[in-house]
């Protein structure tokens, strides 16, 4: 495929990857990975708690270090790549954004559930006014029809977003659904369009390629897939495919492969892969970061983790509702003992 547009690669290993590690990266590990990502030629490196700035909590887990420590350390090793942070209004605030700006971020990604773009207005307007590269991130994009997603994306663009993402947080989008959504945003918006996904149905690379074909300007991936659920689109695999397709991303394949094999994969205590429970996140349409919390609750209350995930999907829980996992597990345990 020929393309004149330069696709921008946004790496999530150090942000979404926090989920896979229960938010326990050491600063040294982040620095090591960030240095290799920079060397490989990745455009944007995202660093935050898995649930965005100020995600530190009992509900989502506390990280091993403060976000300031991580951001400052990574900033120092980035020579070419931009530094990004993620913020979910309702969890983090503009004060957290100011902290991240002091640490030298270039890009901020403001994430809301796919129907709630208007809660991001103050954050997007602020970021844009501060001169940050500002991205709107519409999560759980599989939950609404394409035309409704377009309306929400237009809101984010109207607040000043430079780019709006179709974010497949549950890794639940089928191939045609991914194509439709990117295509519709591409045709409606004047700003850039991005795509982020999870490999829960094994479509991490395939759907990302579809997004590029449909006109996405930015796409996300993580080295060795390091992310919530079955992980994100594995970046080194994506780059191998884009290389073969003749799409120039400017990212060096061998450097990423070495980073995946030598650094990132050995960190994975629980393999990041499309195994049964991770698959169920995609199948049931559940927020990928529910995975580890669900496995913990399943052990604690002796219920089948797959039943928990299916029930969470049935209840139409959205990102951030990790507290409902224990609620569902207790409910199932009660039913089971009857």
């Amino acid at each position, binding site marked *: 495929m020929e393309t004149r547009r330069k696709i921008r690669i946004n790496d999530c290993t150090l942000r979404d990857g926090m989920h896979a590690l229960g938010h326990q990266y050491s600063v040294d590990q982040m620095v090591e990975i960030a240095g290799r990502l920079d060397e490989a030629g990745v455009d944007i490196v995202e660093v935050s708690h898995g649930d965005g700035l100020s995600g*530190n*909590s*009992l*509900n989502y887990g*506390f*990280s*091993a*270090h*403060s976000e300031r*420590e991580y951001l400052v350390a990574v900033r120092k090793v980035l020579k070419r790549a931009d530094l990004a942070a993620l913020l979910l*209004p*309702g*969890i983090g*605030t*503009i*004060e957290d954004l100011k902290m991240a700006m002091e640490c030298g971020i270039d890009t901020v990604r403001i994430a809301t*559930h796919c*129907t*709630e773009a*208007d*809660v991001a*207005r*103050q954050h997007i307007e602020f970021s844009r006014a501060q001169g940050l590269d500002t991205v709107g991130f519409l999560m759980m994009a599989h939950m609404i029809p394409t035309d409704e997603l377009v309306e929400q994306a237009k809101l984010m663009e109207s607040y000043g977003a430079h780019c709006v993402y179709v974010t497949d947080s549950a890794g639940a989008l089928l191939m045609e659904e991914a194509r439709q959504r990117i295509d519709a945003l591409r045709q409606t918006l004047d700003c850039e369009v991005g795509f982020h996904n999870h490999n829960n149905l094994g479509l991490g690379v395939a759907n990302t390629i579809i997004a590029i074909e449909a006109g996405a300007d930015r796409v996300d991936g993580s080295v060795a897939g390091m992310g919530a659920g079955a992980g994100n689109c594995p970046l080194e695999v994506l780059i191998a495919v884009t290389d073969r397709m003749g799409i120039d991303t400017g990212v060096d394949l061998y450097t990423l492969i070495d980073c995946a094999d030598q650094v990132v994969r050995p960190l994975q205590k629980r393999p990041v892969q499309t195994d049964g429970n991770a698959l169920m996140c995609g199948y049931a349409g559940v927020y990928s970061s529910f995975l580890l919390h669900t496995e913990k609750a399943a052990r604690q209350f002796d219920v089948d983790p797959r039943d928990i995930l299916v029930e969470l999907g049935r*209840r*139409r*829980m*959205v*990102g*951030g*509702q*990790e*507290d*409902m996992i*224990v*609620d569902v597990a*207790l*409910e199932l345990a009660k039913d089971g003992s009857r």
Partner: protein
Amino acid sequence: MAKTKAAILGSGNIGTDLMIKLQERSQVLEPAMVVGIDPDSEGLSLARRRGVKTTHRGLQGLLEDEVFEEVEIVFDATSAAAHLEHAPILKRENKIVVDLTPAAVGPFVVPVANLEEHVDVSNVNMVTCGGQATIPVVWAVSQLTKVYYAEIVASIASKSAGPGTRANIDEFTVTTARGIEEVGGAEQGKAIIILNPAEPPLIMRDTVHVFFEEAPREEVMAAIEEVVAQVAEYVPGYRLVQPPVFESHLTEPLFIPGRGELRGTRVTVLLEVEGAGDYLPAYAGNLDIMTAAAQRMGELLVEASKG
């Protein structure tokens, strides 16, 4: 005894629900005027249909109306920014003010926890809906033992979050976290709000995580059950969905960045707030808990002012 006249600033979801509550449920207060800024708003037209005076000229419209002199108490359900303008004017006019915005000009009040502490103050703040739903639980635990950290997750139906809430979501998290510390008694507080668009709308859910210095679990359990029953006296749909879940961190401490390792016990309290369905349907428990608490506070302040 004649009821005391109250004015309500704001004709959105909260102001309208409060008007209905005062009209139908208060033995002490009656709504004398609802103040809005849009003559075509649903709230103002409902007030007119219910025989309550209205103005669409904001606070100025109330100040210039003959009813103002008889009004003893003003509920402000506008926005934090607007309340900062209203507060000094109402103080000069010697009105009791119950502030339902996150402006926090006056001290925070939460029924059950500290309602009686501030009966001599002329301006009190109701924190936030999530704060009203969760701070009583934090407060109950902090009466027994030291609370190192408390965190709440409020999940509300998208339909029950009005434009004011949406435009100022940071104020919710910041104000609620402060309330958890100042009224709840936690050393450190955190608040998270989630909007869920599911249809049919989901009933408001609140989860409270309290991390405390080890104390007998049956005492903590009893204190939580008692405080939930007390809140349910003025919000009947307030209830525990599951029994509280305890998790010990005595051998494996909890690490909080910036604070270090803490040894103690975590309790997770899963709550549901079903509303009375006065204005918005029963799923919007977030409205009810706010307006019911404000009504209770207003009645108490008026009774105290009359000795």
